[in-house]
């Protein structure tokens, strides 16, 4: 049988966190869970979490699922912070140990 090359290792194996210069942080006490950051993430690095432990501005919002940034894959482009209607995502310089 002819063997043809098929790529079948998910790119999840390839962490892209070292690409990040700016790091996004969500201030959950102001996040209204509109999911606009999730919608516009080109790296698909924002997951949806059902955890009830995440802070929220009020009880109604606390019942909604929350966006959680996966720092293994976030490249720090900043689209989430730019599009956030509540401006509750802050970009700051990434600090990794060793410098």
């Amino acid at each position, binding site marked *: 049988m002819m063997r043809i090359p*098929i790529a079948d290792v*998910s*790119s999840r*194996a*390839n962490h892209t966190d070292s690409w990040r210069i700016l790091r996004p942080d969500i201030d959950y006490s102001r996040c209204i869970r509109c999911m606009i950051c999730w919608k516009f993430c080109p790296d698909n690095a924002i997951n949806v979490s059902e955890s009830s432990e995440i802070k929220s501005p009020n009880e109604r919002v606390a019942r909604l699922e929350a966006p959680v940034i996966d720092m293994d894959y976030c490249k720090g482009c900043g689209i989430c912070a*730019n599009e956030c209607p509540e401006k509750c995502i802050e970009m700051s310089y990434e600090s990794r140990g060793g410098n």
Partner: protein
Amino acid sequence: MSGEVHDMPFSIPREEFMEPGHTACHGCGATLAMRYVLKALGKNTVVSVPASCWAVIPGAMPNRTLDVPMVYTPFAATGASITGLRAAFDILGKEDYNVVGFAGDGGTADIGLQSLSGAMERGHNVFYIMYDNEGYMNTGVQRSGSTPYGAETTTTPVRAEKNFKHQQKKVVADLMMAQGVPYVATATVAYPEDLIRKIGNAKKIVGPKFIQVLSPCPTGWYFPTEKTVEISRMAVQSGMFPLYEYYDGKLRVTKPSRPVSIREYVSAQDRFLHLEDEDIERLQATVDQRMKTLLDKERETSGA
């Protein structure tokens, strides 16, 4: 498609067919285009990709980033490739599979135009998505037929002679409309709901479907990576990239809801940094003219 599309807060389908860990640049518009297209089409889809940014975004062998099969095809052959894939699926009795050509603007407006035109003319039941980043971005920002007037690229360097691109953008969606393709639309990544709705409309048509998706490129348009969606929105609101949909012989144009001037659009990107007032006025005039032509055609085809 799931019924939750219009539910708040999720305005687009939740299921993902593109995985993280791909090697696209920061703030890439083309990856957003692929993400939305696959959300709209679902699992039973095969994507054919020629040489383009998307040929390198999945990473090196043996990595893949899509959860649907992706076929690599020679630069000029996207149209031929989807023709063959469609025929193979039909022989296997898998008529419900979506066959999608996903090519950049170089592989569509320049190098792949003949095979695209041929595939559309033969009338196969395929999608052709052109993600338009207005240049050969993968190979280092060279000018393409789809690069707009006034843009600096590495093959139209500005320097003292003001050698920016002096020709107008070739809009492939307009060509497809002139060719009589049953479904033609333009969309952009700032309006994913609109893009997904358009693919839903296209899906109802058995025949060739062409959608041009403007995908801003921070690397090649020289703007900050966080501005991708903002620039994409401004392209529509300034009239630089009008959104429309054409099927059943009728054209429907989306009028800008919060218009901005061309000056605002070009000053947000450094590829237009060198433009002087007269150049911007010339660009504004052609944009206005094109919008007028589209609105005239909309009136003409509405049957009123």
